[in-house]
């Protein structure tokens, strides 16, 4: 199941409810061809990996959220985990300051594009 996230409050609630589980969020848009191709694969993964939480954000409907996470190209997949160590490598260019109980709102990994294999590998590695 892929949950639809519309704003920061919903995102925070999702991350909180995830506890120690890995969260994978897809940023996409209705007009984006590659996103359409990725979606069924993303959905399949959500069915297969039950201990991982999957969500999607429509960048047109949730513009502020897309801006906060500096989404430049789509589809972009960001992974979050309530980890004690935030040294897991990140390809992020900036940090969101939210230093309570392990930087809940900061992604630990980001992947742009349609490499479903790479996405799945990373999910298996981090979950």
């Amino acid at each position, binding site marked *: 199941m892929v949950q639809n996230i519309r704003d920061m409050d919903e995102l925070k609630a999702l991350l909180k409810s995830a506890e120690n589980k890995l969260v994978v969020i897809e940023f996409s848009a209705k*007009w984006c*061809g590659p996103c359409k191709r990725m979606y069924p694969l993303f959905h399949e993964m959500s069915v297969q990996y039950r201990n991982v939480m999957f969500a999607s954000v429509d960048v*047109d409907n949730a*513009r502020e959220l897309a801006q906060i996470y*500096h989404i*430049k190209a*789509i589809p972009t997949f960001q992974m979050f985990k309530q980890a004690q160590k935030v040294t897991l490598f990140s390809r992020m260019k900036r940090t969101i300051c939210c230093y309570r109980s392990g930087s809940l709102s900061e992604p630990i990994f980001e992947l742009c594009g349609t490499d479903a294999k790479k996405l799945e590998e990373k999910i298996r590695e981090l979950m």
Partner: protein
Amino acid sequence: MHQAALLGGMIHDASHYGWKVAQPPHDWGKMAEAVQNHVKSLNWGHRVQLQDRKVKYFNFKASFVNPHMVCGVSKGGEETLLSADHIVIATGGRPRYPTHIEGALEYGITSDDIFWLKESPGKTLVVGASYVALECAGFLTGLGLDTTVMIRSVPLRAFDQQMASLVTEHMAVHGTRILRGCTPLRVERLSDGRLQVTWVDLASDKKDTGTFDTVLWAVGRVPETRGLNLEKAGVRTNPNTQKILVDAQEATSVPHIYAIGDVAEGRPELTPTAIMAGRLLAQRLCSRSSDLMDYDNVPTTVFTPLEYGCVGLSEEEAVARHGEERVEVYHAYYKPLEFVVPERDASQCYIKMVCLREPPQLVLGLHFLGPNAGEVTQGFALGIKCGASYQHVMRTVGIHPTCAEEVAKLRISKRSGLDPTVTGC
């Protein structure tokens, strides 16, 4: 959509080259979706770029409160006041509805709408003679739709008239019905949902009617200045066009307020021109440069079924400026190689180069009618910017086989009276 139409033509040509293909039907919905997705991705790209460059983006409808203050209203109705050292107005223009024609607003659409139609427009009447009218009519015809263009006086008024005439001649020969010297009187909806248009032939004063699925107005554009409250800022406009009056620095009647693009008076209504003017203005405002925008020799292309690319002066303008005696016009009809095998009609494939008669014969304008006119014209625009002369042209070796090489091969002048039609190698 022009490309979609051209591809239809190429599928037809393909069989001549040995491809075993039958002419397939066209799915308007699929094409429209692709176009719409692309436009939305462009809008996204612009927002991302603004963010990247740390430009604060306010999604507000703005109007002036005084020369230094702008009021922005959000979608929710909240007002925000913003003041700045410099203000640049770039609100562009919108298609005009001929509101004096009964039913025009209720039943007609404009170019803003055509790309967003989910279903095919069907049998269409395009009213207008601008490049928007001709381009739309052109691709609609190419997609297999019954298309009529209604022109009140002359096609492509601001362009070289000989070229404009060849453009419309090509369209008429290739399936677009062109009604010259006619103007619509009213549009009514019939019981079956179709539109009935009544028009008058201005020469004979005879009235006529026609039934269409869609009526597309392409009768000019109006600048988006009405809601800006320009008077509150003291920014003056041309009372006839309602465009903002500007000087060579793009400054309006108020020194710290600027206007660029279609909203400014006397500028070519072209996107790349507005973009460049904006960039140069930004450089000047940051005191990085004092370069002004050069509005001369701006190349452009009309993407009608047979494309028309031009840069510089039309023949009429050159003669008006320099006098017929001081102008030399070289011209030639040619046949694109790709027309030969599929036996396409090349009667309107034509090139004209307008030069000064005095050596070295500076090139004043180039006009190219043929496939890929935009690609052909772009390179020559650079040549003209560098002050190319006909002597340079004569020393430029052509690339074979192309249509562009025909420009370098121009040898026959209009003055000589010699036949400019296709010759051998």
